[in-house]
């Protein structure tokens, strides 16, 4: 248990040093015993030894927090890529998906020399993370229904975000650097929370899911959605704020009129949204700002977009594999907004004839309630060969029956892929897809199950 490994963040108090040692030992044990990837166990143990460990490790680091219902992991990954090579030797990041404080502690212990940390944060923990890490940048992607049995309902969550963001300080005249919030201006729930923050970059990143944002959070009015993501309450003056940047198709447009096409390694419009948010966040992280000088019209710094484009998979998501000679694309979607975005991606990818394997579990990490399946527009899969699998394949089967989408039900993701191979003629190639590709869509643990079995 040496302390020198954490020397770059300054001398740690004795208690924190001991806690860091505990984190390392526990993680090593966990990995050796094969009990997991060894991130959460150590982090938890460390926090028991020193409850202030997260705050201590974050001190002297430039921290960016990324949260929201969908796109957290991808945006975090893009932000890390955008900062890499420009911000010193390494960036601490929780790229294993462990997005609660134990995971954040483990990430920072793992990268002791990193002077920056990019942390994906579970929506429920944003307040604690802001308080303990004093971030330079907070990225708010979107907010919609997800895991209602575990995470709070959207309105409770947005109120908690709002109070947490109200406690931030902006850059002061004395030169102290405050926190910049990079917020999705197209999501009224995100805007309601972010309006409480002192310094915000508004990005029109798009929002496919409006059903959790119809009631105005400011009054008893109704949010009406118009063209190109514009929205406004029909009773009060709550409306989409003036945007600093926005997406127009594949272009990232800056308020002064500059535009730059986003060429990415990841497919789909929602990944362009993630990239826009990451680009603005990276620019804030990389810019030494003079006090009081707003940077509202700056294009992302040169290199940022190029580095973003290098991300071509995120923890296996959007990656490809081969099963019985057929290419398989692996896609993850966890909630109605996420599945809707993935269906958009399927439509973008080419003619609607590629077979689809759907896999759904309802373990703790997924949410125990499968009712959300009925908010997903499975009707859009009509005409494709569909195979249902996962722990909750019968829930899927019933949902598909009422969507009038014919389907097979198969136990186990590999057997389901094999069934898809056997069921279908080769689908047609599309812009993002080779001929004969099978699309695999799984929710959180179902996706992990397939990756493990492959």
């Amino acid at each position: 248990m040496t302390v020198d490994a954490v020397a770059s963040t300054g001398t740690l108090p004795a208690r924190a040093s001991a806690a860091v040692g505990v984190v390392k030992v526990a993680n090593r044990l966990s990995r050796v015993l094969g009990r997991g990837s060894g991130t959460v166990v150590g982090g938890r143990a460390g926090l028991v030894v020193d409850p202030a460990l997260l705050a201590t490790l974050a001190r002297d680091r430039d921290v960016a927090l990324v949260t929201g219902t969908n796109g957290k992991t991808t945006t975090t990954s893009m932000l890390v890529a955008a900062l890499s090579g420009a911000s010193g030797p390494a960036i601490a990041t929780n790229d294993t998906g462990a997005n609660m404080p134990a995971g954040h502690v483990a990430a920072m212990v793992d990268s002791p020399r990193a002077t920056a940390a990019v942390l994906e944060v579970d929506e429920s923990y944003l307040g604690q993370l802001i308080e303990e890490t004093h971030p330079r940048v907070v990225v708010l992607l979107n907010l919609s229904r997800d895991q209602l049995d575990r995470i709070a309902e959207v309105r409770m969550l947005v109120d908690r975000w709002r109070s947490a963001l109200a406690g931030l300080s902006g850059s002061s005249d004395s030169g102290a650097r405050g926190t910049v919030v990079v917020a999705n201006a197209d999501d009224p729930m995100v805007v309601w929370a972010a309006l409480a923050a002192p310094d915000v970059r508004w990005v029109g990143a798009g929002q496919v899911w409006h059903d959790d944002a119809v009631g105005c959070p400011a009054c008893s009015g109704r949010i009406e959605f118009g063209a190109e993501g514009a929205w406004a309450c029909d009773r009060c003056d709550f409306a989409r704020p003036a945007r600093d940047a926005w997406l127009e198709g594949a272009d990232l447009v800056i308020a002064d009129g500059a535009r730059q096409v986003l060429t990415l390694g990841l497919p789909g419009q929602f990944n362009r949204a993630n990239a826009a948010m990451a680009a603005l966040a990276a620019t804030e992280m990389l810019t030494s700002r003079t006090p009081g000088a707003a940077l509202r019209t700056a294009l992302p710094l040169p290199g940022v977009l190029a580095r973003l484009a290098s991300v071509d998979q995120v923890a296996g998501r959007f990656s490809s594999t081969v099963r019985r000679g057929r290419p398989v694309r692996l896609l993850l979607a966890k909630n109605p907004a996420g599945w809707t975005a993935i269906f958009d991606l399927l439509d973008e990818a080419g003619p609607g004839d590629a077979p689809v394997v759907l896999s759904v579990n309802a373990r703790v990490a997924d949410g125990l309630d499968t009712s959300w399946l009925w908010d997903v527009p499975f009707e859009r899969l009509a005409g494709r060969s569909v195979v249902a699998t996962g722990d909750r394949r019968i829930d899927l089967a019933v949902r598909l029956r009422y969507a009038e989408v014919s389907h097979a039900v198969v136990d186990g993701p590999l057997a389901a892929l094999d069934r898809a191979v056997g069921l279908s003629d080769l689908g047609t190639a599309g812009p993002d897809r080779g001929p004969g590709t099978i699309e695999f869509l799984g929710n959180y643990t179902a996706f992990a199950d397939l990756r493990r079995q492959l």
Partner: protein
Amino acid sequence: MSGSARGTALTVAVVYPDLLGTYGDGGNGLVLARRASWRGIDTRLVQADSGRPLPTADLYCIGGGEDGPQVRAATALREDGTLLRAADHGAVVFGVCAGFQLLGRSFPDSSDRPQEGLGLLDITTRKGTGPRSVGELVATVAPDGPRPGGGGSLPRLTGFENHGGVTSVGTGARPLAHVVSGVGNGSGDGSEGAWSGRVLGTYLHGPVLARNTALADLLLGWALSDPGGPAPLEPLEPLDDAEEMALRAERLSAVDGSGRGHLVRRFLHRRG
């Protein structure tokens, strides 16, 4: 009523899905509409968003939702008046969770102030003092519960509950079911849901009608029969509910371990 007899159009309205649809309860309307149209009944399914007049329908489904939208929906429904008039003329009203609570006399808002409900069911809801009730729920339909067309009684109900309310059933309504596993109304008498006439409410998501097709068909039977006449004597034409039965069996066995797993395995064997 546009569809008070078989063969004419049946209109199913999902009430304010933009406010009350947080838990997939829109699926209840879909299940009802499909089960009617699969039987050759000309059926219309309407997603009746808030902010405009509520259309006339034979069967209204009101889903679960968050506190703010629940208050908004109750106020709008009272001001609009269509639902109350339709219920008065024999339309079927089916509420789930927040949609169940707002059918009653009063329910709490997010600050625990009582809000006036629609008064279609003699129930009163207050905030519970313990943690939210979250998890699988199984309940047996009460002896004085609603009877399906053709006699007999409804099979056990299965669903997923997620609520913080405690609901008391008054003398003007009857409990829908008695809880076997889970919380339900949480008022200490083991009751779950309530019903009276052609108004029925429950805490069960799932959506509940996908997991309990007998309850779906009971509501359809009500909507397809003359409100002034006797309860329907004939059951609806049976459908191939193999997948729904397998889902019921799996969910019931997950809760009570009653050995129904073999039904699931048989189903999966057949399908797989």
